[in-house]
């Protein structure tokens, strides 16, 4: 699809210039400074997630799981604050908080991106099927989604995580192991209905469009119509909502880790670091500040990026 921009010809008459959708998108996106900055920030966070932890450990000389109680805790076990060797201070177990925070980026982003990706995939398929076929299929799938949305997510998540964690083999015949895989599964369970509902409403609208009708009249199968006609038109909204879902997933993981039910205690995660911080909130301000700051920046960046993408992809926007 292209858009038309009015230009003046050398003679002064108006001439229409076509632009591709991708070029239009990029021009709009570039104008949104906040979204650009957010994209840059996310890029930096991805780099931190990939190699920030090991790099931090190498620079400081403090491995992720090494505790330094003798030098970074007082006689009562209280951690000490930032200094020249421990830039963010020590966590509650005497480990280098800077290194743990960098490793925490890996956990948080991994959970956020993977969980969101899987949830979007499931929601996309179910939403398209429900919206395209309508009738009994739509009713059944929509009611399943409604039930999931009505459930008390945190309480049930706590139950699932607790049940799977009490067995060394995990649950679902060992398919789901406690730790990151379990947290991802829990987030997916409660996230896909949201996406499915959105996709369903888009699909209901798209299936009535002329190009779909034309495709149907030419004898295209339902599968072809869904994947060749409807799906391409969902990509834009899906990308937007995925970027908005990622920070929610990151916060959900942080909430579970804060409750001691997320990733194992030895695995660094921002939520786990905040959980650790609550025992020392009145004596160790750094424990909350640094992981909290990273969490806020990450969440804000994804939200700004999602807003920017939505504005840039909105063909009805008057620019």
């Amino acid at each position, binding site marked *: 699809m292209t858009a038309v921009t009015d230009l003046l010809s050398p003679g002064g008459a108006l001439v229409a210039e076509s632009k591709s959708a991708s070029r239009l998108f990029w021009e709009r996106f570039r104008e949104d400074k906040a979204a650009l900055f957010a994209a840059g920030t996310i890029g930096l966070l991805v780099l931190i997630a990939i190699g920030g932890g090991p790099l931090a450990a190498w620079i400081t000389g403090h491995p992720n799981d090494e505790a330094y109680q003798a030098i970074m805790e007082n006689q009562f*076990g209280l951690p000490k604050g930032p200094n020249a060797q421990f830039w963010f201070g020590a966590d509650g177990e005497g480990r280098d908080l800077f290194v743990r925070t960098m490793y925490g980026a890996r956990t948080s982003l991994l959970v956020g991106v993977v969980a969101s990706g899987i949830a979007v995939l499931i929601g996309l398929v179910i939403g398209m099927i429900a919206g395209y076929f309508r009738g009994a299929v739509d009713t059944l799938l929509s009611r399943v989604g409604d039930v999931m949305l009505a459930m008390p997510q945190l309480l049930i998540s706590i139950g699932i995580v607790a049940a799977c964690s009490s067995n060394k083999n995990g649950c679902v015949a060992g398919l789901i192991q406690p730790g990151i895989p379990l947290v991802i599964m829990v987030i997916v369970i409660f996230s896909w209905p949201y996406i499915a509902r959105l996709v369903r409403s888009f699909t209901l609208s798209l299936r009535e469009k002329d190009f779909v009708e034309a495709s149907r009249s030419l004898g295209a199968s339902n599968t072809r119509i869904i994947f060749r006609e409807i799906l391409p038109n969902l990509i834009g909204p899906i990308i937007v909502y995925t970027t908005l879902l990622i920070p929610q997933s990151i916060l959900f993981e942080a909430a579970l880790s804060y409750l001691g039910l997320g990733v194992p205690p030895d695995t660094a995660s921002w939520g786990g670091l905040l959980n650790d911080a609550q025992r020392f909130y009145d004596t160790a301000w750094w424990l909350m500040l640094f992981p909290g700051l990273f969490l806020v920046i990450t969440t804000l960046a994804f939200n700004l990026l999602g807003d920017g993408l939505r504005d840039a992809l909105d063909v009805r926007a008057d620019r």
Partner: protein
Amino acid sequence: MSRPVRRVAAVLLSAGVAAAVLVASGSAARSSSAQIKAGGTLNVGWESSFGFTDNLDPTGEYLGDAFGILDNLLVRTLVGYNHTAGAAGNQLVPDIATALPKPTNGGKTYTFHIKPGIKFSPPVNRAVTSHDFVTAMERLANPKDGGQYAFYYKVIKGWDAYAAGKAKSISGISTPNDSTIVFNLTQPTGDFLYRMSMPATGPQPAEVTKCFEGQPGKYAQDLISTAGYMIEGIDKVDISSCSAIKPADGYDGQTHLFLVRNPNYDPKTDGTRKNYVDQVRFTVDASDVDIYNKIEAGQLDLATSSIPPSVLQKYATTPSLKRYFHQNSGDRTWYLTMNITQPPFDDIHVRKAMNWIIDKAALRQTWGGPTVGQIANHIVPDTLFNFKLQSYKPYKTPGDHGDLAKAKAAMKGSKYDTKGDGTCSAPQCKNVLMISDTRGVDPGMVATIQQDAKKIGITFKVRQINGAYPTIQTVAKNIPFAERPGWGKDYADPVTFFEPLFDGRTIIPTGNTNYSLVGITQSQCRQLHVTGDCSPYNPKTGLGVPSVNSMLDKCEPLVNTEANDARTVCYENLDKYLMTNVVPWVPWMWSYVTRITSSNVTHYQFDQFSTTPAYSMISVKS
């Protein structure tokens, strides 16, 4: 009133109190008699979960902190204690019995007479008789009713036959009349009176307990009291039939336990409990930080909780707060338990290496450092051996920080040291399951243990469970390693460590306390679904299951006399044997019991028997 003003007011109010500030040496009580008044509500916070081993059912409940509740507030026994600190608190006194009986028949018969005026709380509302003790003992003997320390009473004639379902009653218990009960033993047992002070032996009404047969823990929510308090709402429970019985409102098993005065309790029959307050309210709080904020605000009066290091530092070092800081000898060992049937801990070389490598000082640091306890060097706290094993430190390392060289030396010879370099390099050494709890101290402990074990090649897969004891106590779960356990004496005799913790014959499917499975036989392993190596111990290879049953049998009948401490010496030797030839644990701390009270508490007292606050002896502002 703002918090600082309230604190100043509390200090001024307490100015006239002649309080001795004692740390670590123990204090029996802290108040002046002028401060002690009846009335008010004692509010107690409880961290994370009650963690009861049997839901507070006296028949099966074995958590030390639960003993403090049962013994002080709900369950009277034939003999008991004065609910005070120190040696005086470990001395037996009559409770329901008229006197401490002297054994007859060569030490094999004990006859108790019951005081008049002892009644069950509502809704039972009748006098306690000798038959009610029989009910309690039969529940304890019945394997289906969840008794976790029934092994103490095997010395009663006919106990095993009844437990096996081969007899309709326990032949060694007779009730000549309603106020007399006689116990006939198979052999002289010097500590039998101590065994009769345990909460499971307290009288129970058969008309209620019969409804819970075969349902361990269920009776707790309808527990019929004989002491100064009862569960709130128990008086409204309909006991006309089993189907009519519903749990009392005051205890839900998870979040709260509310106790009110028992109207049928006659204080004239009880010389050991003062029962100052009108109500005692226990509430579970997920956060130890929140608990101590509430204590400082006066919303809670004390707590069963780990103490955040910042709080510990504040109360231990601020002169104006020291009066609220109470420490007593805990008679308790905290330890890391290794299942000797599960790899890699089925090899004694690995278990010894763990003893050498663990940084005990760091573990203690997570709890608050030297203020909270002493480093443990063997099984039983030195206090129970009168400090005669004080110099016995078989795995002592510099600063108690662990010793890698010695750990590697210990590991050599292990079948898991496949590289011959003193590290556990076989696949069985990786991702070993460790069960951890969710208390405030657990993440720090896990981090320390993982860091230390990694040095000798062992890595752990950690599972955090809220209230981990039931999981650890289920034998069929085959848990290789747990950092949660602690063990306090049942009464002031070393047998209360060795019997429940290391006698292979006491191993039960659930509620088991011999976590290491010392002395388990191959037959037991098959019955209990133990998956690991249960073959008898081979001293040449260091593999297999060692047993100390014969050593236990040798020590049990011994009695200390003025001439010699034969019993104590026997158990000292057993402690040494366990630490060098069995090595089931890494003992790491003998903790003090530290409690912080609010300014509402006008009299605090410690109960040395249960090593908990003496709830029946604490007063508050009313």
